[in-house]
């Protein structure tokens, strides 16, 4: 996803001379081609996150489309006030590209995990938040962000994610139906870096003739309530899966949507348990220990669908 995202920007540079990338001393090798082709459109701002974000605001005021790239905690947490006051309050169309969504940086430790960033984003009106699942959505997110007149936050996993979409994504702001289910009662909604677990769960359920509808919700702010409510209409069970605290992520959003629309489906929210992560494991192992690995998704869907063994 990461390389696809940057390559999409690189392509856009052929037509546009207003694009500028700022990195916070992050992204080994990611910008090599960009720096080679457009050396005057890139600056490594160093380990100075507050200055970087405010600087981006100033540069955007002079007419540049500024892209700020960093690991998510250093992009959003360290300089939340700069993002709030300088980018969002001033309505500047800066693109904040965060890498390492969820626990994809495991086992780097809690400082490098991004399990509450969408909660922060929801406190920032007008900040568009996109959490793509694969290179196809990452490409659409990059195109959207480049044309958007608002600030945009794109949360990406680390790198090397497989392709799940079968066609190009034309509207990243809409929920994406990834697989149609045979089992018409249950839908899985998810976003971002937990995609491979969800899709593996889908394959297992399909083999058992219990395949649910699978929907990626890449754009979490604004949250397209009518479109999502429309897709879920008629379903009995909704399982949300995310590599994020579910209380302030997709799970929380769906709970609010359910309450506000008086939907009669049952919601099961799967996410990172609310707490700090001290286990030392790689991403797959950590997902398993936190209850969001494939087997748990399969089990949840089977339980709510009445197939529990």
């Amino acid at each position, binding site marked *: 996803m990461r390389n696809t995202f940057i390559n999409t920007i690189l392509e856009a540079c052929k037509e546009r001379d207003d694009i500028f990338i700022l990195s916070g001393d992050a992204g080994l090798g990611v910008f090599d081609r960009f720096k080679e082709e457009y050396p*005057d459109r890139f600056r490594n701002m160093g380990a100075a996150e*507050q200055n*970087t974000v*405010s600087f981006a*605001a*100033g*540069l955007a005021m*002079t007419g540049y489309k500024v892209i700020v790239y960093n690991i998510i905690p250093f992009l959003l947490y360290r300089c939340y006030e700069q993002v709030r006051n300088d980018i969002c*309050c001033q309505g500047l169309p800066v693109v904040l590209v965060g890498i390492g969504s969820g626990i994809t940086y495991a086992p780097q430790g809690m400082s490098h995990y991004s399990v509450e960033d969408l909660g922060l984003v929801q406190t920032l009106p007008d900040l568009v938040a996109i959490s793509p699942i694969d290179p196809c959505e990452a490409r659409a997110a990059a195109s959207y962000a480049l044309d958007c007149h608002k600030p945009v936050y794109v949360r990406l996993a680390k790198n090397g994610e497989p392709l799940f979409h079968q066609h190009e994504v034309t509207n990243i702001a809409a929920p994406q139906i990834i697989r149609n289910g045979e089992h018409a009662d249950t839908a899985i909604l998810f976003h971002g870096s937990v995609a491979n677990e969800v899709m593996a769960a889908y394959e297992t359920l399909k083999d058992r003739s219990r395949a649910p509808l699978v929907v990626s919700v890449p754009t979490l702010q604004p949250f397209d309530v009518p479109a999502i409510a429309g897709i879920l209409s008629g379903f009995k069970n909704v399982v949300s899966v995310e590599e994020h605290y579910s209380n302030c992520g997709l799970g929380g959003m769906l709970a609010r949507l359910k309450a506000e629309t008086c939907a009669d489906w049952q919601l099961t929210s799967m996410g990172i348990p609310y707490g700090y992560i001290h286990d030392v494991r790689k991403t797959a192992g950590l997902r398993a220990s936190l209850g969001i690995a494939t087997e748990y998704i399969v089990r949840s869907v089977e339980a709510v669908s009445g197939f529990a063994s």
Partner: protein
Amino acid sequence: MASFSRRIRREIIEMAYCSGGPHVGSALSCADILATLYGAELRLDPWHDRDIFILSKAHASISLYAALAARGIMPPEMLATYCQEGGLLPAHLDRQTGYGVECSAGSLGHGFSIGLGMAFGFKRQRSPRRVFIVIGDGECQEGSVWEGALFAPRQGLDNVTVIMDYNNLQAYGRPAEICSFEPIAPKWEAFGWHVCRADGHDHGSLLDALHEESRGKPKIIIARTTKGKGVSFMENELVWHYYIVTQEHRAKALEEIG
């Protein structure tokens, strides 16, 4: 320019009195700096190619509003709406105000870096536009200021001039007693800035510093000032960071300012 300063000071007192708001001492502290910039230094015509001024110590916003009105950029009648119900001017700066408020600010250490970003953009566009930023001395306790201070010289931002309004009095005491940043000039010098000193209440001294050649470096003018300058009972008095101007204060202050 003396009359420009006087007008700014009178408006500061009026706005502070009518709003019942604080930060009068901070606003009076930089009144002469703003008078020098808006009265003599800033190139504002044509407007679309103007120099940029950023008041990073935005709690002194009334000094900027007064300067913009005096310079004919902001309609003078707007000043009466400062901090009033349904008014147009908030206590801290909001870019949506328009009329020459170039950047929202109010949290210390932000306007400085925004100014650097703008200066970088102008450089890249080969534009002759310049950026002037006023920061407070207390503001130099912010880490973000030093992040920007490290970065700017490497980019050769000689189109940036920072003026440090050094009144040696922050909200609750002397900087040296709270979190000392001295020696301040060698610090900026060591970071690669061209450092000048000026009397922040002497227009001539400020202009000399503004015109000093910086040889490709960003420039900082350390301007010695007095908090509450121009009103004897406010000068160098800690309480006038937050005290409210009463009718009696107002009358006495306006009499002194002339």
